[in-house]
Every structure is written in structure tokens, then in C-alpha cells.
């Protein structure tokens, strides 16, 4: 069984380290906040100027002056701080934010990522993605293994305009957990019930398999 979006988020949440600052992108990454393991303290940064982001507000308590980078109404937790956009990206570029989780259209086996532009289609812009991938120490991509046409999103080389070079460290898809190494994609775990063969067929980029590949524990 391949994972659904919530299960992908739940698996990524296992990567969260105690006492770290984390930036979550729009989409599946946002769901990671719902699955923080017990005993792990993390603070979420939103690049529009919030540290210590909390859950959505209760109905009727929303504040138009308090949103996240996806323009959704949010709350802040005890210990939160608010700041301007230059300070926010100082936290990101200055590597004070330790982990970035974001979505992607393509990832290459050298860690290149493409997630902002499809030529000939309406281009909305990169927002903060280029700053985030250029600097974070650890970058985890959350995405489906293949696109809607069934084509692999894990490639030897990106075909779309890239967002950043050699930056992705790990990829969690509906089929697998993959580490980006100097030699290419290394298969670490497979989704429950998904065969290694299935993952090989769905991966266009060079895939390294060392011995038995364990199932994810969700």
C-alpha cells in the first residue's frame, strides 16, 4: 500500500530532531506539524515573519494580521516572536533554521530540486523557496513518487528549471524513503507492502539498493 499525504507527513515527522527550528512549506509539509513525536520540541518558522507558529485559530478568533507563508490564518505559541522579512531570511540564509521541508515537482540524483516553474505555463514565482533551499543544513522533500501522468519525479537530471543545486538530503514519497548520496538515490525504506521492484520501476534516477530494504514504521 502506498502512503497517503498524511502518512508521508507522519513519516517525515520522525525526522524531527529535539530543540530545532523548522520551516514547513505549503502542502504535505504543513501536515508534518500534526505528527510531532512525543518528547520532541521543535519551533516552526514561517518566512513571512513568525517563529513559534501554532495551530489554526478557533472559529471567530482569526486575525488578518497573523498569517503564515501560505496566507492562512494561524496562531502563535508561548515563546513566539514576530519580525520583518529581512530578519526572517537572515534566520534562513544564516542557517539558524535547521530543517526545511518542502514539496517538489522533480528531484535529481545529485540533489537538485525543481519546484517553481513549468515553462509555457503561468509562472507564479519562487516565493522564498530559492532562499530556503540555498541555505538550510537539512532539506527534506515531501512528494508523490510519480506525477499525474505516472512519470517518475526522481530523475538523473531535472527537466524543469531548477530552484536550487545539490541541496536535497532526503526524499519521502508515497512509496519510499530515499537518501541523496554522492552516488545517487539510496533506497532506505519502502512503504508497507510496496516491493523494491515497484520502487525501481517508479524511479528514473540511479537507485542504490544495499541488501534488504526495511518497511517504514508509520
Amino acid at each position: 500500500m502506498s502512503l497517503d499525504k498524511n502518512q508521508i507527513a507522519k513519516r517525515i515527522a520522525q525526522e524531527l530532531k529535539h530543540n530545532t527550528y523548522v520551516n514547513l512549506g505549503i502542502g504535505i509539509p504543513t501536515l508534518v506539524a500534526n505528527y510531532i513525536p512525543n518528547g520532541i520540541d521543535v519551533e516552526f518558522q514561517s518566512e513571512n515573519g513568525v517563529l513559534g507558529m501554532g495551530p489554526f485559530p478557533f472559529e471567530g478568533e482569526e486575525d488578518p494580521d497573523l498569517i503564515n507563508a501560505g496566507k492562512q490564518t494561524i496562531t502563535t505559541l508561548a515563546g513566539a516572536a514576530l519580525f520583518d522579512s529581512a530578519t526572517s531570511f537572515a534566520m534562513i540564509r544564516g542557517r539558524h533554521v535547521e530543517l526545511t521541508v518542502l514539496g517538489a515537482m522533480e528531484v535529481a540524483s545529485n540533489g537538485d530540486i525543481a519546484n517553481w516553474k513549468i515553462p509555457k505555463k503561468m509562472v507564479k514565482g519562487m516565493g522564498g523557496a530559492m532562499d530556503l533551499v540555498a541555505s538550510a543544513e537539512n532539506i527534506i522533500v515531501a512528494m508523490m513518487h510519480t506525477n499525474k501522468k505516472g512519470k517518475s519525479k526522481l530523475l538523473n537530471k531535472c527537466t524543469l528549471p531548477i530552484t536550487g543545486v545539490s541541496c536535497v538530503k532526503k526524499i519521502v514519497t508515497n512509496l519510499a524513503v530515499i537518501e541523496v548520496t554522492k552516488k545517487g538515490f539510496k533506497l532506505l525504506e519502502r512503504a508497507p507492502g510496496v516491493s523494491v521492484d515497484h520502487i525501481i520501476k517508479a524511479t528514473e534516477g540511479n537507485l542504490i539498493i544495499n541488501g534488504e530494504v526495511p518497511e517504514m514504521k508509520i
Partner: protein
Amino acid sequence: MINKKVKDVAEAIDGVKSNMTLMFGGFGLSGIPENCIKELSKKEIFNLTCISNNAGVDNFGLGLLLKKRQVDRMISSYVGENAEFERQMLSGELKVDLIPQGTLAERCRAGGAGIPAFFTPAGFGTEVAFGKEVRIFDGKAHILETALTSDFAFVKAWKGDEAGNLIFKGSARNFNPLMAMAGKITVAEVEELLPAGELDPNHVHTPGIFVQRIFKGELYEKRIEQLTTRKREE
């Protein structure tokens, strides 16, 4: 005390002309100078270059200037939340420069801080880096980005005083303090305008030296783009 107070929005935008470069604070629709944008949309001013992280939505925010075809070029990091913008961009009527959000913020800050250019890793190896100088620092590649300034900067704050000091609220601060620094003439509209001495200097976010005109804005709509809530547990 140097008094920056002007009587209304009409006086605040006096001197804005066609072909100028204007900055607008805000992230999405949060913390945008609603009064100034509305007033500018009533003027026969065209061919503007607008620097703003986003471009508003249809009928609100910078969407008002776009609808009236007052904008020639947008410099932003993320756009296209409105149909008219998309139409103008795809037909080539509107020029759009997309730049990474952190680079946009820092270019404004640098413009106001007297730093003509800086190196950043953001965008290296991508099409953003085309034609830009690359330098390696500590083994990592960086690209040269230049500062941004503007003829006018329009910002929105929560509270201000007549000396031009500003305090922002929540995440509505965003680009406002940086653009306040980068405008040759910075116009601040505030929800609450106080006499000098009423704001605690310890709490000022933007010092009044960066603000040339300040006025109390009216009828803030503060539209929410993505209303997300959770249910109260019984």
C-alpha cells in the same frame, strides 16, 4: 520633534507621477497600505514600476492598479493570485521580474542602508543567476544582487506617532520596515496615530527618520486570503 503628519491620504500621495518606481509593503493582503493604493487607483498616473512581494487580488490591493492598467512592471517574489494579472502577464502587457523573497527583502534593506550590492547563495545555479557575478566564499557559490530604492514607499503600520515612529502588529510587519528605509519619500498609513511622546521609544520598530509622511488610514478592510480555523473541542 520633526512633525511628519499630513492631513489625509490625498496629501500623503501628493507628488506621485507617471513613470515612477513605487514600493508597497505587505505579504499577500496582510499589512498592505490599503488607503494609499485606493487613492493611487483614482489618479491618472500610469507606467508605474511597482515593487511588492505580491500583486494583490482582483479588486483589492495592487489588483486595483493593475485593473486600471497603471502598472508597467511588477517586481515581486510570488504573483498571479488574480485573473487580470495573469491575462496582462501572458499577453505581454505587463512586465514581471520574479526574484527570491529573501533577496527582495535584503535588496530593499540594502537600498535603505546605503549598501549598493551584496552576495547571496539564493538562486545560484538557477535562471535567477543569469548574467550575475558569481563569487565563492567559504567554498560556497554566491551571486551578486544590487540594492533597490524607490521614488515613494507606501507602508502600513498598526500604530504611529507624529514623529513618524512606527509599531507593527503580528505578521503584518513583513516588508514594511524594509521598504520604509528604501523610499526617497516614505508614506506611512497607520490605524492609530498618536501625538509624539505617546509611543514608548523602547517599542518602536521603524524609527521616524525613515518616514516622511504619516496619516491615519480609514476603513481598513483587512481581507483574509485563506481563512483557516479549527473547531473548538467540547
